[in-house]
């Protein structure tokens, strides 16, 4: 809402002219002033001057040399405007040094085609008064004496404008009268709203029929005959322009002025275009259409409230008038409407057609249902002032009385809720000046009648708020709370926090990714079909809720690569949304992505590989649950399609699959333009319990020495190292304390298709020192088992000498 300081000052005599002071008080009372600007900035330097001579520019076509009389002196200026008046005409001069913010221009001496011009004749656009820049401002020859300051002649050409961000509960602030009432309370000044005389006329003959009193409780109207539709005077145009409303014609401008004054939208119909002398406020009927003032044909809905004449709808009630009954320059007779429409009805219609008008904005919030007569009378008076016309008749239909609310305020309750005592006198004074009527004065409680301009007030707590905000929240002292602690509920935050902590500790960086994704991405990644679809997505690539965290991570990775950031260690933690009951199942999930090269120390960089991905996934789970998950390769038939056939594994913890990891399938890499490989893993955190205590029991430290044997076998490359290690462990039995693989080698002198695997076996018995013979026998059995089981050949086995 834009508000004019000069207008407010006329409604609150004595209101300070310092904009910052007014703005601070409004903001402090909950009507937040977001900005203050000056309308017509620069006009204060301008003068009204008389043209005394005009001649063509000696060298420039289209330009003229204009001599003007400034009262004290004359000067010649270069002017390019098409509408320079004949000598005698009055124009506006911006003298040297004037700064015109509308054009961000300071007037300086300027040589044009050899002639120096010291000043500029101004258009309205140059002064920021309107968008009209086609010609300079021209006044009648006898307007004012030459040299008169512009603002003396035309005070409306300057004002201070507040941009007020109103919360939806304050429709009264959508008009200057409401704002003025508020300011009169805040500054404790008298409030002087206009008091239009009651319209004295007979009832006119247009029939007014209202079908539904809930949707239209009040309808007031007036008919004016013989108006002259034309341009409004400067003060009206300036006022409207300063408040962001385009001036159209005197009659339309009057409805807009009343809207800005009372906050009550009105509508003017061309009486001649109302067919059948009838106004019917009713719901639209099946198949009806209406061309609204914006030129759009609308197929109406059975829930739309319309103003119809005998032939059909002619306005969408409270939203916009119809083109068919629009006031035009040729209009002579007017039908004014000032009604109260049900907020919800107006809102549904406005939203249905995506319309948001000054009118619907106010009706949706609830206009003052008690001011229809005043607003109508004001509109009639203003119209007669600006466009003439004869009041032919008025008519008012009250279909349903809206009972004023009555609310009690207990002083004890107010003190208890605020933690701060406010005097009863202060409370009464504040509420009364806001328009509340004190009905009953009990021992502790006061009962107030709620004024019609405050539809938001219906409960005691609303009154408490009114008093508190006017007194000022700063007046309430801060008190340390007495919080009685609660027990945490859910625990998801703790889980996610632990995961984040460990992931960051493992060198991953956290990505914040959108929960909505494109359905195609889920299909591409072999994720479950979406369980939740958006009915009104903002973007076509954000249509469903994710069933995997990968799309967001992959997007981040693709974006990073486009920016030449190739080495990626990212993770994301958040919810995925799967089929559930009434609401979907929200599963906490973590995913990570490795791409590019692993950091190295003074050595050649190497790409991330399967074991980086595995190591990271295993470490992450280990750190969370204190036990080690297994990675089990997928069978070809069950492998998720987004993973590479050569590198795809299930992460298994205590026999339960908790996640998957692997190399992204090259087809997926291509499909999302990832520009290079990426290793990904995703873990379902709902299957992980971070509250499993770390159950450590002390084991006596081994007393007897170890003895180690190594073993290197050459086997077919399709033999899995883990299988070999398992066989070694099984054969060595209790004597083997550990089996570690320490080398895997291919190429060199080895035959193609063969791989050398080397293991280190640590032997130790709990109860004795093992003899060499005993160990050698065991190790020989191990070698035999491995070579026969895997068809390998022994490359070497040897004893490690203890140091």
């Amino acid at each position: 809402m834009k508000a004019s300081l000069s207008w407010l000052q006329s409604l609150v005599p004595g209101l300070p002219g310092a904009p910052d002071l007014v703005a601070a008080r409004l903001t402090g009372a909950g009507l937040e002033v977001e900005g203050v600007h000056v309308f017509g900035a620069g006009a204060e330097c301008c003068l009204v001057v008389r043209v005394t001579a005009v001649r063509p520019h000696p060298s420039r076509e289209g330009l003229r040399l204009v001599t003007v009389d400034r009262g004290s002196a004359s000067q010649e200026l270069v002017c390019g405007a098409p509408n320079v008046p004949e000598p005698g005409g009055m124009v506006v001069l911006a003298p040297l040094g004037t700064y015109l913010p509308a054009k961000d221009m300071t007037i300086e001496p300027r040589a044009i085609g050899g002639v120096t011009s010291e000043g500029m004749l101004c258009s309205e656009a140059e002064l920021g008064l309107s968008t009209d820049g086609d010609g300079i401002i021209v006044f009648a020859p006898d307007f004012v004496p030459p040299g008169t300051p512009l603002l003396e002649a035309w005070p409306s050409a300057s004002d201070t404008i507040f941009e007020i961000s109103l919360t939806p509960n304050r429709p009264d602030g959508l008009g200057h009268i409401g704002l003025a009432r508020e300011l009169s309370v805040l500054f404790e000044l008298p409030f002087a709203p206009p008091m239009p005389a009651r319209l004295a006329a007979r009832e006119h003959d247009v029939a007014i029929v209202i079908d539904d009193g809930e949707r239209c409780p009040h309808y007031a109207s007036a008919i004016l005959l013989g108006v002259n539709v034309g341009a409004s005077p400067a003060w009206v145009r300036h006022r409207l322009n300063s408040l962001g409303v385009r001036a159209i014609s005197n009659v339309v401008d009057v409805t807009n002025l009343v809207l800005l004054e009372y906050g009550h939208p009105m509508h003017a119909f061309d009486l001649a275009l109302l067919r059948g002398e009838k106004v019917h406020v009713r719901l639209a009927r099946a198949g009806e259409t209406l061309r609204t003032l914006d030129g759009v044909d609308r197929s109406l809905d059975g829930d739309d409230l319309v103003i119809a004449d005998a032939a059909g709808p002619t306005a969408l009630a409270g939203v916009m008038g119809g083109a068919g009954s629009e006031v035009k320059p040729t209009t002579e007779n007017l039908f004014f409407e000032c009604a109260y429409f049900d907020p919800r009805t107006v809102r549904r219609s406005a939203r249905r057609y995506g319309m948001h008008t000054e009118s619907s904005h106010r009706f949706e919030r609830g206009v003052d249902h008690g001011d229809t007569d005043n607003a109508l009378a004001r509109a009639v008076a203003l119209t007669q002032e600006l466009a003439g016309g004869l009041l032919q008749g008025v008519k008012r239909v009250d279909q349903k009385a809206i009972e004023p609310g009555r609310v009690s305020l207990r002083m004890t309750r107010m003190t208890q809720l605020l933690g701060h005592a406010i005097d009863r006198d202060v409370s009464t004074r504040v509420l009364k000046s806001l328009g509340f009527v004190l009905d009953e004065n009990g021992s502790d409680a006061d009962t107030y009648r709620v004024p019609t301009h405050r539809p938001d007030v219906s409960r005691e707590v609303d009154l408490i708020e009114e008093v508190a905000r006017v007194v000022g929240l700063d007046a309430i002292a801060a008190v340390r709370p007495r919080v009685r602690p609660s027990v945490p509920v859910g625990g998801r935050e703790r889980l996610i926090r632990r995961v984040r902590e460990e992931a960051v500790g493992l060198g991953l960086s956290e990505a914040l990714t959108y929960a909505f994704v494109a359905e195609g991405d889920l299909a591409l990644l072999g994720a479950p079909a979406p369980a939740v679809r958006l009915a009104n997505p903002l973007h076509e690539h954000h249509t469903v809720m994710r069933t995997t965290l990968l799309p967001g991570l992959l997007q981040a990775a693709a974006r990073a690569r486009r920016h030449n950031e190739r080495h990626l260690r990212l993770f994301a933690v958040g919810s995925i949304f799967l089929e559930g009951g009434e609401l979907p199942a929200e599963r906490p999930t973590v995913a990570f992505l490795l791409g590019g090269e692993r950091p190295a120390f003074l050595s050649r960089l190497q790409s991330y590989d399967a074991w980086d991905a595995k190591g990271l996934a295993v470490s992450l789970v280990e750190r969370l649950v204190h036990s080690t998950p297994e990675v089990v390769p997928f069978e070809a038939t069950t492998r998720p399609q987004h993973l590479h056939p050569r590198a795809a594994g299930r992460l298994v913890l205590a026999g339960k699959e908790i996640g998957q990891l692997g190399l992204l399938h090259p087809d997926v890499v291509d499909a999302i333009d990832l520009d290079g490989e990426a290793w990904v893993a995703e873990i379902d955190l709902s299957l992980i319990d971070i509250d499993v205590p770390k159950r450590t029991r002390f084991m006596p430290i081994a007393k007897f020495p170890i003895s180690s044997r190594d073993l290197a076998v050459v086997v077919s490359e399709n033999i899995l190292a883990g299988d070999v290690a398992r066989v070694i462990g099984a054969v060595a039995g209790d004597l083997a304390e550990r089996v570690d693989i320490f080398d895997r080698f291919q190429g060199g002198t080895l035959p193609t298709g063969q791989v050398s695997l080397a293991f280190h076996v640590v032997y130790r018995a709990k109860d004795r020192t093992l003899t060499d013979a005993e160990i050698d026998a065991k190790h020989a059995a191990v070698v035999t088992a491995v070579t026969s089981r895997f068809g390998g050949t022994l490359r070497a086995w040897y004893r490690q000498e203890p140091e």
Partner: protein
Amino acid sequence: MSTEVEAQIDQSLATLRAAFSPRFEAAAGAGGEPALREENAKILGKKGELTAILKQMGTVPGDARKRIGEKVNLLKQEVEARFEALIKTLAASKRDAELNALPFDLTLPGRAPTPRGHRHPVSSVREEVLDIFASLGFAVHDGPEIELKENNFTRLGFPPDHPATDMQDTFWTTSGTLLRTHTSNVQVRAMMSQKPPMAFVAPGAVYRRDDDVTHSPMFHQIEGFVVDEKVTFAELKGTLAEFAERLYGPGTPIRMRPSYFPFVEPGAEVDIGCVFCIQPSGTRRGCSVCKRTGWIEILGCGMIHPVVFEHCGIDPERYTGFAFGMGVERVAMLRYGIPDIRLLFENDPRFLSQF
């Protein structure tokens, strides 16, 4: 005969006595400790020169043998002492050389045990805010991101078809549920399932149909609420003042401006004194962040509306409560000077690695 032998032995001993030290020094100088040990073995070893001399003793009579034995022993001690001294000198000079060698190049990068990972700035702020409220006695309460209209709007007192819902442009699902527009749904869930007293904070993702420099369609909020007998606005103010001091530093003032949220009454927006233009004197100059006002808006709050209590089955006469909510992204943007909310969701490694 015996004296002749004795004289010969004396002669040999004298020769050795004169020679051993220069020989040791020569050996140490030429071959270091190993050469010195070798030289020592040549003299004192089983087949060494002194041993050889000793062996000749068998041919001399008892008393001469005793004399010679004493002389040999004496020489042996001298040799050993010299040898030990030289070994020590060698070790010392070796230690010296080691200590005086070129220092390691500590300008080479350190070998990190793992590369450094980075928390997202939004997460850091989230954790910090939650820690502050935890220390004030609040517990964390989770809630779903996809929610029923009743819990997100109706029970919070949003009137149907009311412009208040425009403040939170909503994503609807095809099944009629919605993506929560705020974490206030947790308030409803807590009040419907628990009896007062309660003091919770509820963090999480929320969604609104907005996308520009300061709005993201998905963002994060932290909601806090206390319900008990006789909870006052003054306590709300005290809680938030405490929070502001802990998050933004001691002495950070707060200011409350009346505002409107359907589920609180009285409702307010809270500003903190601008932390960007504060002067050493404690005054604020005004800057672009605070739009020259000296104040920055950080959260919305108020006393829980009695209608919310009624909808959740709590007696509004007996209980009162306060609630507050803040956008985590906004706090993070202010804290780190991030100008555009979209930077938070692009996950550019050059961005993430700064935090």
